[in-house]
């Protein structure tokens, strides 16, 4: 009937329900026994026994049958009506003093409104209201011992009943909503963690399977190539160089594919820290200038004196800069390479410029796609994997930044990326 009720019930709501229920019963029992000690005999003995018998029979029936065979909603429904009938009878028996106990009606109504769907809670409220009207009517007709309940008081009480229903209903919906949102968020997080764990397991298995034979080939080919296993004749040596180079390329390709897979599936996370990016660039420049083969090229760094620290994953950004510099070294015709940086209020931009062959304009967009190899690039070198710039793009985009190229054919290219300062 109501799918919402089959959703897990918030503990808080359960506690409120139980509190209202227990309070109702305690008050009812106190009244039944309490009135006996008053000087005035409000309820005579016979009536008390009927009442207690009635309550006991109901409780027995409820826990033996209703509790066992009825759904939660129907159970609450039945119980609320029984509570109202009981309270109605009690108020009636209390005669003139009944009006003081009228507030008792509010308790089962509140309990119903907390637990039941709005329409059902409204039905309970209507039944309680009908009881009030019935009492006012019968009282005025002198068919019942008068409760001194005027039409005005009756209307006020019905108003209260409706108000309580709406208020409790509202509270219950709020609590359920809160609980649902919390559960959903938890489930989502759990699913994400599960996914990431599975992904990592898959990745480790794949890389292990691919890397193990490759590392054996790489190791033995290095030994042959380094003549650790004896001299090779010139032809064998030539073949060995090819095998060795190809293995290195294969390892690079597998490593890059694994990186991409990690980034794309979300198994890869940035470990951002407030970092002095200038220091990173200085380190890279010094490192590259130190290696022999780059000494002739030389890399210059052009950074403003004051550069605010920004929050980045230093290792990943270093990887991006290395990648861009590596490309510049490859395609820069052995001429000077310049790394520059600038910073405004919002972002920090790094650029790597070479005076190499340049890139045709129509290739700009495709440069950052996986496996794209420009024509001029293919003429110069066919050993790259075509994944470096794609990985750079993924890393920069993960940082919330952007990466782009500018180039003039024959004059050189500039690769830029900017990172948000915060």
């Amino acid at each position, binding site marked *: 009937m109501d799918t919402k009720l089959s959703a897990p019930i918030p503990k808080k709501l359960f506690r409120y329900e139980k509190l209202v229920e227990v309070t109702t019963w305690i008050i009812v029992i106190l009244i039944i026994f309490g009135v006996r000690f008053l000087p005035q005999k409000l309820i005579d003995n016979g009536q008390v026994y009927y009442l207690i018998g009635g309550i006991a029979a109901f409780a027995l029936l409820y826990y033996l049958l209703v509790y066992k065979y009825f759904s939660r909603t129907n159970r609450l429904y039945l119980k609320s009506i029984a509570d109202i009938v009981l309270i109605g009878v009690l108020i009636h028996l209390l005669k003139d003093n009944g009006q003081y106990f009228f507030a008792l009606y509010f308790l089962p109504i509140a309990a119903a409104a907390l637990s039941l769907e709005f329409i059902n809670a409204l039905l309970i409220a209507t039944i309680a209201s009908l009881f009030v009207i019935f009492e006012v009517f019968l009282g005025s007709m002198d068919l019942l011992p008068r409760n001194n309940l005027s039409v005005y008081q009756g209307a006020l009480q019905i108003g209260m009943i409706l108000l309580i229903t709406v208020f409790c209903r509202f509270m219950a919906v709020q609590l359920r909503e809160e609980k649902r949102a919390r559960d959903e968020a938890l489930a989502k997080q759990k699913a994400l963690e599960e996914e990431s764990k599975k992904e990592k397991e898959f990745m480790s298995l794949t890389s292990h399977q691919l890397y*193990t034979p490759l590392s054996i080939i790489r190791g033995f080919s290095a030994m042959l190539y380094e003549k650790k296993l004896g001299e090779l004749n010139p032809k064998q040596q030539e073949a060995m160089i090819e095998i060795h180079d190809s293995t290195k390329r294969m390892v690079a390709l597998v490593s890059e594919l694994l990186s991409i897979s990690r980034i794309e599936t979300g198994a890869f996370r940035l470990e951002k820290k407030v970092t002095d990016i200038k220091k990173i660039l200085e380190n890279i420049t010094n490192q590259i200038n130190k290696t022999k083969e780059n000494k002739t090229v030389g890399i210059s760094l052009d950074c403003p004196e004051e550069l605010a620290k920004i929050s980045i994953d230093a290792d990943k950004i270093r990887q991006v800069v290395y990648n861009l510099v590596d490309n510049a070294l490859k395609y820069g015709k052995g001429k000077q390479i310049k790394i520059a940086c600038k910073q405004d209020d919002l972002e920090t931009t790094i650029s790597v410029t070479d005076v190499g062959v340049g890139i045709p304009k129509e290739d700009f967009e495709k440069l950052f796609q996986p496996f794209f190899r420009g024509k001029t690039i293919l003429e110069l070198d066919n050993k790259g994997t075509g994944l470096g710039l794609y990985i750079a793009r993924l890393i920069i985009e993960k940082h919330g930044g952007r990466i782009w190229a500018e180039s003039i054919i024959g004059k050189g290219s500039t690769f830029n990326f900017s990172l948000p300062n915060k």
Partner: protein
Amino acid sequence: MKVLIIDDEKPIVKMYEEYLKTADIDVVSAFDGETGIGLAKAHQPDVILLDIIMPKLNGLDVLSKIKADPDIKNIPVFLLTNLPEECSGDKAEELGAAGYLVKAENEPKMVVDVIKKAIKENPN
């Protein structure tokens, strides 16, 4: 200079054995963790190279056993594996590994450099 290699992959062990011998490093090897720990105690190598994915006892378990044994806990242990560092790097560092080397990404020459550097820094 003596190095212990613990790796279930026989061709890998053979390759490193050959390579390290040419660099004047004595090699002892074990194809499983239990044997590896026994050999470490018996031979007291200068450096241990340890694989991660192995049947029965995996490399990280072997590492924590080595670090818990007063006889051998001071020997620098390098994980030499084909698992990406993201998978087990943190765990290895936590357990006290001296380094993490991915086999396919490091040529044997680099592994030798790492071993020599570690022996220089840790002369016991």
